[in-house]
């Protein structure tokens, strides 16, 4: 192609087209960059779920790309009544109000119960055991204060570009939140005020 005997006019034209296209493409890229950068902020996003929207369907446990899911149960102590008879800890038809596995609602026994003072108990989540199924959340929300709720735990979350759970969440509870405030803990905000991009 680069033979100097070639028709130089021909190559002048090809070069011209090539250069023109190069500039056009470059300007196109610059345009896209300009438009998106204008409203872009420097920080990134992480995925989080709005506990007030969550309906405890159980999909968080199944659809996360990680096994077990990066969604874990969080316990907001401020909201907890420290009840002895805990709707999130005990099965409704428990034989006994004890800590035996058959009485516990949690399928993996991830909720630890600790006696504080008569008649109050503290409840703790062992995140290594929690699979994010939300069964305890359902119990706590139905019968108690709703102090147990699900959150995407960022020590596990790999922050997929598109969250696999968000895709199937029936309540549209998942959203992208700024990395500077990565959690939506109940008590820190009220119903319907969570801001993010779906």
């Amino acid at each position, binding site marked *: 192609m680069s033979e100097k005997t070639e028709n130089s006019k021909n190559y002048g034209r090809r070069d011209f087209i090539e250069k023109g296209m190069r500039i056009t*493409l470059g300007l196109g890229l610059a345009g896209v960059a300009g438009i998106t950068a204008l409203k872009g902020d420097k920080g990134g996003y992480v995925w989080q779920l709005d506990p007030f929207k969550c309906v405890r369907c159980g999909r968080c446990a199944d659809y996360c*790309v990680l096994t077990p899911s990066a969604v874990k149960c969080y316990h907001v102590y401020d909201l907890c009544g420290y009840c*002895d008879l805990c709707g999130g800890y005990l099965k409704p038809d428990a034989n006994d109000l004890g800590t035996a596995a058959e009485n516990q609602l949690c399928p993996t026994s991830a909720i630890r119960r600790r006696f504080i003072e008569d008649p109050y108990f503290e409840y703790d989540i062992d995140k290594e055991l929690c699979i994010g199924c939300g069964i305890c959340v359902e119990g706590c929300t*139905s019968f108690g204060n709703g102090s147990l709720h699900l959150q995407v735990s960022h020590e596990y979350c790999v922050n997929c570009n598109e969250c696999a759970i968000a895709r199937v969440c029936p309540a549209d509870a998942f959203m992208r939140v700024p990395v500077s405030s990565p959690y939506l803990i*109940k008590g820190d905000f009220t119903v319907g005020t969570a801001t993010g991009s779906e």
Partner: protein
Amino acid sequence: MIICWEMKGRTIDSKTVNIDTVRRYVMLVFSVLFLLVMFNTSALAQEQRFPRPEFDSGYEQPNVIQPAPRSPYMEYVDLFVLIVVLSFATWLVIKKRSRRMIFWTSVFSLAYFGFFREGCICPVGSLQNVVLALVDPTYALPLTVLLFFLIPLVTTLFFGRTFCAAVCPLGAIQDIVAFKPLELPKWLQKTLGLIPYLYLGLAVLYAATKTDFLICRYDPFVGIFRFDAQFEMLLLGGLLLLIGVFVARPYCRFLCPYGVLLGWMSAFSKKHLTITPSECIQCKLCVNSCPFGAINEPVAETGKRRTGVKRLLNYLMIIPFWMVIGGLAGSLLHVPLAKFNKTVYLAEQIVGTPEVLEDLDNIDVQTFLQSEESIDELVLRAESILSDFYWGGWILGAFMGLVIGLTLVKLSVHRGRKDYEPDKVNCLSCGRCIDYCPVKESNGNDGSNIKK
């Protein structure tokens, strides 16, 4: 509170309590509460049923531990690595001309961007974020994502697809397994080569309608990078790697939507990988070395320029027809295309088969019924999305028509060529041909053989 007080003492000495009485009591209380919840709509607002107790024992309440996400600074580290590796790879392809070093660079990229960074975010997927940022006012594109999208494209605009050669982890994993590449017939290559355009169009359509990130959802190798994924994902990845043994880099050539953009950039790139360091001696050795069929053979000028121009004009003239036909087909397909949208699918289910409203196992429908939205509002929302899909279908179809039209134009255009040259659009700059070329660098005129 009453319950707590009532139960006081019973568990402390549980032996004295009749278990059955307790159970009946518990069930009763739970049922009453449950009914209260059901009939009390304000329960959604979740008022505190049991106030937090005052502790006498000096109990200190722990804080809710909120582990921080991966530091955003790490994303700048990724960006830095991208720039360094891409510059190095470009230097290797254009100046150093070493296949072996290109290969090892790609192994490094596979280790870093693939297995260490676990595949997210990659430039391939970032194109959906860019589209989303263009259409969704609530989504601001993070700067790092924008740069991840732009840097490989700009580099390609100047130096060809060096990103594909040694930086993309998806390309690297396939390049390693390409043991026995077979040559595909040209017609098959051209036909399969249309799939990426369709994939790109669909990915843009679904990202723009906020339906799904198709590219991420069907990313075949991210499951392998994470050693963990849904079965279908691993199956797709395994299958592509298996095919990749015989058909080199099947994802890059016949699926990758970002590759389409890179191909456009590369077609008009300022510099590009050259097969020989100086003069081509027409030995044909390089053709066999390229597993991607991306080397163009010399074509003699036929001299009948006039008929060629006429044919070219004819093909250019029918491009609008291709676009209209494609657009029509796309718009007709908008209903099945929109089925992937959650809202549209839910509305169709409820309107089409109202019995799902009774189905207590249908979580989506039951959740919708619990929400404050009425069916009419849902249908309105779905219809607006459907209309987006209708126009999106037109654009997608017209785009595919344009692609097919231009492919035909390209096939019909007779462009004289004296030497063996890389096909700038499809060449992945892997550098295999460099090793096969027997010509040694003669007068230090490195890379001057192809184009000035």
